[in-house]
């Protein structure tokens, strides 16, 4: 029975303009924040936004807006929205969208475009946003009428969230935003589609392969996190007694101290991690894409091993390595069914061998007791905090040091630009994580080079009084480039030193937040501790020597077994 007083949906007619419809549809998608910057071509969207429950966060640069939205998406797994105007607004978003594509982040970039009648005339702030976004999104649209929004917006969310997540972009000309439309009913919000169906026989076959292997290794990546499958994975690894390697994107799936955890592999992986892969006879890759920073020279990757590959993205299977068995499916679903049918087993010999390698070829932690050295700074920060904090990094040496030694103990604890390696990611991503989870403190480990790339967002963090600590490992250099020039270009240092040093603590104060410079502190440890534990945004400058290097290092294009090692202390 229908009650005419409450059941008004079918007979109501809504009369609204395109931009109001857009905002309504975003509200219905459950969007709570939109990050962006207004301009001529998206004025109607900003007008409609004032009549919405959605909170707008004004970024200081569109790239910042894109990364703030990404930070929210990385913390929650939900699709998040950023706004930019046409022309330079849209082109400024490009890097953040491309970054989301490489790391499979559900980001929805919505841009204003010039009036349709002006398209193609080189109008003021006209740019081919459709063309710019096309190669860096899962899908993108130019919306040609307000009516199309009814289809495009739910579809955008569905595509961003389904299968392997990723960014989408929607370009909306100003006349479409202003067009009046009458609608009777709003469409259903777009949600993640059903996962692809797989054959349970495949799971049985995978378990057989594992049973027959003598030295199997589990290799896990971001796909496990996106599938929400970390618990199932832990059970699977424990039941089958599988030593487990995490990719850069997979850090946090297994608690760092777990006996089966072998940390991160690849270019800056621990020696034992890469060496275990030399000996293993089976690699079960789950939610990984065998990226070149992880595999090193592909022909030399796991020379003795067969590969089993489970991934939701069909095109990843066979892209880099030819598996003997592959399952195209949601890793979570595969793990759940595997856990139901598997017979627990033990591998004392292999475990012993792995332990031996771990002991013989550990990561050398030079300077870990010195606050003014990389490992020391990171470990000290970690020791003052608990697992509730979220961590972001920028890109460079500091990023690799953090990946190597920060004790990540839960999925989505860590956000870093893995695939695109974008300097400038860390601060805005930290802002996004803090907006999404205000109860958690966020630490952004950054370098003096990277921070300068989106430093304007300090003002955004201050404006919202977010609990973000920006920890700069300051070598006054583009450290990772300096390292490569040192190792591979005979120390011919070129354009890596900043002749003009920046006073970051002062800059922070100029942007409305606290700034602490441990270089001039009487009691650096105490000052670090109080800066970290206080509520509110703060920049903490920690000077380190520019001669520090990240070791081990596999030369780009080299085999993982050929690691360059540093001096042992």
């Amino acid at each position, binding site marked *: 029975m229908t009650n005419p007083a409450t059941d008004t949906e079918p007979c109501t007619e809504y009369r609204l303009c395109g931009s109001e419809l857009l905002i309504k549809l975003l509200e219905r998608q459950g969007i709570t924040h939109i990050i962006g910057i207004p301009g001529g071509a998206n004025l109607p969207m900003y007008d409609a936004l004032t009549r919405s429950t959605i909170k707008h966060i004004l970024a200081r640069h569109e790239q910042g807006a894109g990364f703030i939205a990404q930070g929210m998406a990385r913390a929650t797994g939900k699709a998040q929205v950023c706004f930019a105007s046409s022309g330079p607004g849209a082109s400024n978003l490009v890097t953040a969208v491309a970054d989301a594509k490489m790391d499979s982040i559900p980001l929805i970039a919505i841009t204003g475009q010039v009036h349709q009648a002006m398209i193609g005339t080189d109008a003021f702030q006209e740019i081919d946003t459709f063309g710019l976004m*096309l*190669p860096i999104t899962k899908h*993108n649209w*130019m919306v040609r009428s307000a009516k199309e929004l009814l289809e495009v917006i739910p579809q955008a969310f569905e595509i961003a969230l389904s299968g392997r997540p990723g960014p989408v972009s929607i370009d909306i000309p100003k006349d479409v935003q202003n067009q009046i439309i009458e609608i009777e009913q709003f469409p259903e919000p777009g949600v993640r589609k059903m996962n692809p169906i797989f054959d349970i026989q495949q799971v049985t076959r995978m378990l057989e392969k594992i049973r027959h292997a003598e030295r199997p290794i589990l290799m896990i990546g971001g796909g496990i996190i996106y599938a929400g499958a970390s618990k199932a994975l832990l059970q699977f690894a424990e039941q089958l007694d599988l030593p487990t390697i995490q990719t850069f994107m997979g850090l946090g799936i297994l608690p760092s101290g777990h006996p089966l955890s072998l940390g991160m592999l690849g270019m800056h992986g621990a020696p034992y991690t890469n060496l275990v892969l030399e000996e293993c006879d089976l690699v079960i890759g789950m939610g990984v894409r065998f990226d070149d920073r992880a595999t090193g020279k592909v022909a030399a990757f796991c020379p003795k091993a067969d590969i089993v590959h489970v991934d939701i993205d*069909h*095109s990843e299977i*066979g892209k880099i390595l030819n598996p003997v068995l592959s399952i195209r499916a949601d890793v979570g679903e595969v793990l759940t069914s595997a856990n139901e049918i598997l017979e627990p087993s033990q591998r004392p010999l292999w475990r012993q061998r792995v332990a031996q390698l771990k002991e013989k070829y550990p990561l050398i932690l030079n300077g870990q007791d010195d606050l003014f050295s990389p490992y020391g700074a990171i470990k000290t920060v970690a020791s003052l905090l608990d697992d509730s904090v979220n961590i972001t990094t920028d890109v460079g040496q500091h990023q690799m040091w953090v990946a190597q030694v920060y004790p990540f103990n839960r999925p989505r604890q860590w956000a870093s630009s893995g695939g695109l390696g974008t300097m400038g990611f860390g601060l805005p991503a930290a802002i996004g994580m803090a907006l999404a989870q205000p109860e958690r403190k966020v630490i952004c480990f950054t370098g003096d080079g990277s921070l300068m790339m989106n430093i304007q967002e300090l003002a955004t963090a201050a404006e919202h009084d977010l609990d973000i600590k920006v920890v700069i490992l300051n070598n006054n250099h583009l450290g990772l480039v300096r390292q490569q020039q040192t190792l591979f270009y005979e120390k011919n240092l070129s354009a890596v030193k900043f002749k003009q040093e920046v006073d970051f603590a002062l800059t922070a104060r100029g942007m409305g937040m606290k700034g602490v410079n441990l270089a001039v502190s009487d009691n650096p440890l105490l000052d670090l501790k109080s800066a970290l534990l206080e509520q509110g945004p703060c920049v903490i400058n920690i000077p380190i020597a520019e001669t520090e290097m990240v070791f081990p290092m596999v030369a780009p294009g080299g085999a993982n077994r050929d690691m360059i090692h540093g001096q042992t202390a």
Partner: protein
Amino acid sequence: MSHDRLSVLKLTVNNHPGVLSHVCGLFARRSYNLEGVMVRPIAGNPPNRSRMWLLVNEEERLPQLIKQTEKLIDVINVEQHELKDSVFEITQQFFV
């Protein structure tokens, strides 16, 4: 034309602006060798569909190329087709 590495793909795609860009953009950025494209709307049900014929010069990477093409949202179906009797053979006379 040398026929040894040529393959013909028959695509069913949504007929709206941007589809051709999505397909050709994919081939350009993954550096797949595209030798020919032919596309026209097709009559029938459902409406708003186009047929796209692609002549590709890829052998080893063909399975990967097909998977990537299948991932495009506006691509509904991808089939492999013989070169013989394909639209490319029939129209060869116009490309001399």
